[in-house]
């Protein structure tokens, strides 16, 4: 358990798709300003957990609390307004819209004057987006689209990010850039992060704590640095 009060608290979560249960009794929490990573093999239930937290997937059993409010099965729209934002694993931008429109739409729940302010901020932080503001997102490279998705998260005035595989498909240089950006956001803006990441090494590098999921259950909860010190991780997967 984190020393600080948890901003997100998941207790005894059960969920799945159709009749297929994919997550069994998962409990985890993320503290304010903390980076927590969820690792595990493909199909272990990591993304499923994030989606349930975001309100994109119905919770079968268990409870989810955010900022000390019960948000189990509340709509994603309501969760966005509360300050929760999820960046999807694939299709994480609106490909048919321009960069500027992507950012604008991400600020759907934000007041418009405030949105203009954040947008300046985002363009400052991610100059590549400013240069490409008129470009259709679908025509950008994978790395640029990732940057855009982070920019979109900022536009939604999120206090907490749920990141699903932010490094997927990116060259190592870009992976480090994205991770650096996340670290920066946490350090400068006090964001909290729950991250699913295939690139375990990178994830553990910036995370405070880690959970290992296997076949829909949490098998290990550990300090990120401690986990990183292990000689090998195969037996966890």
């Amino acid at each position: 358990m984190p020393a600080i009060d948890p901003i997100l608290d998941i207790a005894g979560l059960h969920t799945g798709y159709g009749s297929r249960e994919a997550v069994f009794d998962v409990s985890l929490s993320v503290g304010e300003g903390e980076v927590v990573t969820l690792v595990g093999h493909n199909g272990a239930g990591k993304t499923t957990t994030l989606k349930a937290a975001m309100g994109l997937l119905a919770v079968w059993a268990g409870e989810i609390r955010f900022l000390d409010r019960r948000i189990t099965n509340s709509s994603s729209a309501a969760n966005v307004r509360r300050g929760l934002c999820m960046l999807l694993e694939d299709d994480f931008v609106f490909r048919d819209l321009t960069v500027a429109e992507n950012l604008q739409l991400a600020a759907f729940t934000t007041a418009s004057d405030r949105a203009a302010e954040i947008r300046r901020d985002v363009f400052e932080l991610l100059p590549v987006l400013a240069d490409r503001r008129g470009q259709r997102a679908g025509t950008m490279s994978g790395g640029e689209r990732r940057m855009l998705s982070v920019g979109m998260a900022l536009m939604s005035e999120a206090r907490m990010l749920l990141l699903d595989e932010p490094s997927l498909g990116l060259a190592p240089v870009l992976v480090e850039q994205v991770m650096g950006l996340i670290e920066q956001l946490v350090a400068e803006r006090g964001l909290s992060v729950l991250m699913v990441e295939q690139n375990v090494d990178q994830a553990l590098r910036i995370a405070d704590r880690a959970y290992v999921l296997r076949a829909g259950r949490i098998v290990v909860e550990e300090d990120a640095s401690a986990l990183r010190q292990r000689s090998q991780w195969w037996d966890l997967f």
Partner: protein
Amino acid sequence: MIHPATAIHPATADFGPAPQLAFDGLLVGSFYAMLAVSFGIIFSTTRTFHFAHALTFTVGAYAGVVAAEAGLPFWSAVLLGALAAAFFGVASDLLVYRPLRRRQAKQLNIFLASLGFLIAGEAVVQYVFGPNSRPLPSVPVTGVQFGSLATSSLQILIAVVSWLFVLLVAAFLRWSKYGLAIRGVESNAVLADAFGVSRTLIFVLVFFIGSFLAGAGGVLFAARDTATPGMGLEPLLAAFIAVFIGGIGSIAGAAVGGLVLGFAESLGAIVLPGYLTNIVAFVILFLVLVVRPRGLLAPRTT
């Protein structure tokens, strides 16, 4: 079918009907463009095979007729018809399609429910308003001539209003916050959801806009012809075909599809006898589906 006409009056030159037919094509194509946009915005966003859009069209037309019969001026009748249709369209989404979506109904089932809704609705319209055609009273119509081209002022008006509505919708989608949200849902509904854009709300919105246009179209149509309970089917089919010719998901495509359809139907009369022109649309649809199933102007290749 046309007999050589030169024998008796060689002085009156016969340029053939082509220019007039092209002109007619432009006018009717403009109307189709609006109908296509009205259906296209609903279909490409919600993917609902909304056959009962025909009913929305009819409801709008009768609302306009009733308003005009009550003595309201033409423009108020158009507006009232459009509004009535808009609310009707939203109601059909909420009452028919939402329960179906919630039960994850198959495309065929949604389509059939829509058809059923149309059939039942037409019966109600006929019960309330009677089976006979109801003209829209006090429509100002005069003949208009441009050289050898002739049409009525109403036809011109319909074309102008059609483009006005098409441009308004395009501008709304392009520049307004909710227009952007609609495009967002169309592009990536899950992601839009994740950013707090409620799909339910957006669906209601597109049903409102699309039905508004259909209703306005219905009143204009009633002004040109008359209102009858079964009036909606043909315009709806034209809209369907135009959307699929243009390619789903693009307002410009739908509008262009409408124009293409109008021209094709009208110009088809140069080579075909008049009674075959209403098949032209379906032949084109068939060919488009066979040759280029995603539409002539399909915006993306996903």
